[in-house]
C-alpha cells in the first residue's frame, strides 16, 4: 500500500480485510482517505522505529575529585563564562572556581581533549574527551614505542606532556625514537613538549636536532638548548654569525668611578631598515650567544643592560630573555625590573617563565603604577584568588578604574571592563565584593556583564562561609 501511495494510485485492493471493512462502502476517493487515516494511526501507534545495530555508547563521564558548583551559583557562572571572550578567559573562570573547591557542571563547560591549561582536577574529563575524539586511545594504557601509532596526535601529546612531568627521561627517549618518523609539524609539536621538565640530560638529544630537516625544529631546539645555557651556534665571529651582527647594534661602555663596570646600551639606529634587521636578530639569536660576544654571563649581561635608553630595544631583549634565557637569567631580569620599580610592560613579556611569587609581584607592580593597567590582561598563568584589597587600593589602580567607569570614553570603559574581568579572577572574595561596590558607586550598572567574574568570585565565598557555619 505504501509503495502504491508513493507512486500514486488506488490501494483499496491491497488493504488488509479488516481495513477494507472500515474503509469500504464509499466513493473511491473517500476509501483512499479512510485507508490513509488508518495507516497514519497504525504508523504512529503500532510501529516502533527500528534501532540500528551499530549504536555506540560512550564510556560514562567520570566523577571528579571536587564537588560540583552549587545549583544556585550556576546562573552566575554561566553569565561569567558567556562574557569570557575566548578559551583563555573561560579557563580563568574555571580555575577560579576550582581554587574555591568546586568543579563545573559538564553541561556548562567541558575541557577539550588538547586542553593543557585547565586545573588538574579536570584530567579525567580531558582523558574522557580524548577517548571520545580518538577511539584508539585506551585511557589506562601508557604510551610506549610499541603503541605509539595507536594514539591520535592530540592524545599522544597529552600522554607525552604528562610523562615529561613525571618521567622526563622516558619521554625524551620516546620522542627521540619516534619524532624522526613524523612530519615536520608533528615533530615541532613533539620537541616543543621538551620544555616541560627541561634538564641538562636533554642537551645531547637537542644538539642532535641541529641537523634536523626543518628549520623551525632546528630553531626551537637551539632555544631550548640556550635555556640550558648551551651555545646553540659556533662562535666564529664571522660575518655569517647573527650574534656578532646583533652585538654590533649594542655599544659597550663603562660606568662608575671607583669600580668600573661594563654597561650595554643599544646603539642609535639610522634607518627603519636597521631597526627591522635588529628586531630580526633579536628574534633569532639566543641570549647566551649574545652575552658570550661580550664575554659576559647571561645575568651579567642583563644586569648591565641600560633599560630605558631605547624602549623598542628593551622590549626586544625582554622577548629574547623569555624565549631563550636560562631560568637564572629570567629571574634575574624580573628581580631587576621589580627593584627598579617600573617597566611592568617588559615584565609581562617574562610572565610565562616566572614562578608564582614573581608573577604576583608583577601584578602588584602593574596595579601600583596604573600606567600600564591593561598589561594585567596579558599576564599568563597566574594563581587565582589571592589579590587583597590593599594591593588594589594602595596604588593608583582603583582611582584609574573609577574614573574610566565614570567617564564617557568608550575605549576607556571597555579597557576597564577587561581589567575588572581579570581582577575578578585574581581577587579574594572580599576584594571582589568591595571592588563591585566601588565601581557601582562610580556609575557602573550593578548588573553589568563585565562584573560577572567578580560577582561569581564574591558569591563563591558567601557560599563557602554559609556551608562552613
Amino acid at each position: 500500500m505504501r509503495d502504491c501511495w508513493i507512486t500514486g494510485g488506488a490501494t483499496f485492493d491491497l488493504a488488509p480485510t479488516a481495513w477494507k471493512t472500515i474503509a469500504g462502502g464509499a466513493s473511491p476517493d473517500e476509501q483512499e482517505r479512510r485507508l490513509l487515516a488508518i495507516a497514519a494511526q497504525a504508523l504512529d501507534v503500532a510501529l516502533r522505529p527500528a534501532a540500528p545495530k551499530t549504536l555506540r555508547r560512550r564510556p560514562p563521564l567520570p566523577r571528579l575529585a571536587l564537588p560540583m558548583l552549587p545549583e544556585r551559583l550556576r546562573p552566575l557562572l554561566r553569565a561569567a563564562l558567556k562574557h569570557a571572550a575566548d578559551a583563555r578567559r573561560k579557563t580563568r573562570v574555571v580555575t577560579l572556581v576550582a581554587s574555591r573547591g568546586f568543579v563545573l557542571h559538564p553541561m556548562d563547560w567541558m575541557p577539550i581533549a588538547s586542553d593543557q591549561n585547565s586545573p588538574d582536577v579536570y584530567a579525567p574529563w580531558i582523558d574522557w574527551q580524548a577517548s571520545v575524539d580518538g577511539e584508539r586511545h585506551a585511557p589506562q594504557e601508557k604510551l610506549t614505542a610499541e603503541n605509539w601509532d595507536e594514539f591520535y596526535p592530540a592524545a599522544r601529546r597529552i600522554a607525552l606532556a604528562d610523562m615529561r612531568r613525571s618521567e622526563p627521561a622516558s619521554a625524551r627517549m620516546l620522542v627521540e625514537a619516534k619524532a624522526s618518523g613524523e612530519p615536520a609539524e608533528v615533530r615541532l609539536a613533539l620537541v616543543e613538549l621538551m620544555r616541560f621538565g627541561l634538564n641538562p640530560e636533554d642537551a645531547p638529544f637537542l644538539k642532535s636536532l641541529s641537523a634536523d630537516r626543518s628549520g623551525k625544529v632546528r630553531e626551537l631546539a637551539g632555544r631550548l638548548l640556550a635555556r640550558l645555557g648551551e651555545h646553540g651556534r659556533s662562535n666564529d665571529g664571522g660575518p655569517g654569525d647573527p650574534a656578532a651582527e646583533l652585538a654590533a647594534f649594542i655599544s659597550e661602555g663603562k660606568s662608575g668611578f671607583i669600580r668600573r663596570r661594563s654597561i650595554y646600551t643599544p646603539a642609535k639606529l639610522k634607518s627603519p631598515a636597521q631597526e627591522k634587521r635588529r628586531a630580526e636578530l633579536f628574534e633569532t639569536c639566543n641570549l647566551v650567544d649574545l652575552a658570550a660576544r661580550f664575554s659576559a654571563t647571561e645575568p651579567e649581561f642583563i644586569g648591565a643592560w641600560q633599560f630605558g635608553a631605547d624602549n623598542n630595544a628593551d622590549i626586544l631583549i625582554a622577548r629574547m630573555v623569555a624565549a631563550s634565557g636560562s631560568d637564572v637569567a629570567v629571574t634575574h631580569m624580573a628581580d631587576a625590573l621589580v627593584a627598579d620599580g617600573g617597566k611592568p610592560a617588559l615584565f609581562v613579556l617574562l610572565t610565562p617563565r616566572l614562578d608564582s611569587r614573581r608573577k604576583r609581584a608583577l601584578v602588584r607592580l602593574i596595579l601600583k603604577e596604573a600606567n600600564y593597567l591593561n598589561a594585567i590582561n596579558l599576564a599568563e598563568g597566574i594563581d587565582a584568588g589571592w589579590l587583597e584589597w590593599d594591593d588594589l587600593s594602595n596604588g593608583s589602580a582603583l582611582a584609574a578604574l573609577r574614573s574610566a567607569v565614570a567617564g564617557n570614553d568608550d575605549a576607556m570603559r571597555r579597557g576597564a571592563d577587561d581589567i575588572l574581568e581579570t581582577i575578578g579572577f585574581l581577587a579574594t572574595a572580599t576584594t571582589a565584593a568591595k571592588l563591585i561596590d566601588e565601581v557601582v558607586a562610580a556609575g557602573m550598572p550593578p548588573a553589568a556583564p563585565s562584573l560577572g567574574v567578580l560577582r561569581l568570585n564574591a558569591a563563591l565565598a558567601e557560599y563557602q562561609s554559609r556551608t562552613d557555619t
Partner: protein
Amino acid sequence: MEFDLKTIEALAPDQASLSAASKLTKRSNWPRLERNEQQALIWGECQGSGSNPYRVVVDTGDHGYKCTCPSRKFPCKHTLALMWIAATAPASFAAAESSPEWVNDWLGRRRKTTPPPAQPIAGAAAKSIDDAARTDESAAVEDVAAVERREAAQRKRAEDTRQAVSAALDELDQWIADQLRLGLSGFVDGSSDRCRRIAARLVDMKATALAGRIDEIPSRLMALRSEERPDAAIRELGKLVLLAKAWRAAPDDPELKRLVSTSETREQVLASPDARQVESFWEVLGEKIESRRDGLVSHSTWLLDLKSTTPQFAVLLDYFPASAGRRSNAFAPGDRFDARLVFYPARKPLRALVAERMGDVMSGAWPDFSLGATKDPLAGHASYQDAAPWITDCPLLLPPGAILVDDRGTGWWQAAGDPQGIALPIAGAVNQTLLGLDLAATAALWDGARLDLLAAQSGFGRLDLS
C-alpha cells in the same frame, strides 16, 4: 519612587495606551510587583492576553523600561501601568534584596543614556491621564435591544464561519485525494508549493488554524531523512483526514474548533465550565521557539506537574509576529512555581493558561513516577493518540536510559539495561557530553519520528536540553 502622573502622561505614546494602562492598574493583574531602591528599579509580571505573563522592568532613575510583550507601542500599556501603580500605590511593591536574572540581563544589555526629557512631546496635549482613568467608570450601558442585535449578529457570524470551514474541509479532502492519486513521492518533493496553495485557500475559507498546520508540513518533512519522508507524509495527511472527520461530527467541539479555525480568547477559557483547573507546583521543562511560515513565531513553554503521581504536562503557547523581534523568555528552564493553571478544554488537555501564580518553589529532583516499571517508553504517546489521534507532538517522560550514536552521528535514546529494546532517534545535533551521562529520567516531545529533548535528570543533576 520618582514617578508622578504628569511624567506618565508625557511618556505615553497616545491616549489609547493610557486608557489601556488604566485597566491594568488593578493589583490582581500583577502576580508579582517588586522594587529595589538601591538599583532604582521596579519590576513586575503582568498577566496579559498571552499564556505567559509579561515581564516589565522600569528604571525609576532615568525612566528606561523593558516589557516582554509584542506591542509596537513604546512604552506599552504594561510599562505605563507599572509606572502608574508606582505613582499611585507605591506600597504595592515588595522590597527585593536582589534583582531577578531577567532584570539583570536587561541591565547588562542596555546602554545608559542621559535621562530622556520627560517633557510633553508633540501630541501629548491630546493625552490626559484623567480621561484615561475615567474611561473605566464611564462604560456605556447598552440597552436590551442592542444586546440582542449584537448576539444575533454573533450567531450569524458563527454560522457563516461554520459553513465556510465546512466548505474548506471539503476542499481539503479533495486535495488529499489528489495527492494520493498523483503519488506521495511527488508530494514530498513539491510539498512547499502544494501546501502553501491549499493553506492560502483554507485561510480564505476561515480554517486559519488548519492552514497554519498545513504550512508547517514541508519543514516537518524536510527535517527527516529522505527515506523516512513518505511515511511521515502518510502520517501528516492521515491525521488531517481524521481531524476533518472529527470536526464534521462535532463542529462545536472547542478542541476541534481550536485546531481547525480559531482559538478561544483567554477570557473564554477562564470562564469555560469545561476547562480543567489544576493547582500544583510546576517546573519549566523547556521552551520551543519556532518561526512559522505564516510570519508568526510560536513560543511554547512546557511544564511538568510536580505534585501528580503520574507524569502530567502543560504547555503555555503564545504566538507573536516575527517582525516584533526576539522576545525575552517569560520563564527560564528549571524555574519552579506554585500556580493554578486552567487548561483549554480538550480530550487530553495540554494547552493551558496561568490563572493565578502563588510564588516560587525550591528546585530539586523530579518526583518518582515509577518510570522504571514502564515497559513501553512510548505508552504515553499511544494514550494521547488513542484519545486525540490528530495530535502531532506528545510530551513524554522516559524511563532511565542513555543517549547513543549511530554511524551517521545521529543520537538515539535507549532504555537502560535494554540493549535490544527500542531506541528513539533524536532531533538535531546531540551535545557530546550527554553521551557520557546516565539519564534517570528524560522529558521530551515525540512526533512519531523524532524525539525533541526538553530536560533530563542525571547523576549530575538537572540537565537543560531544550
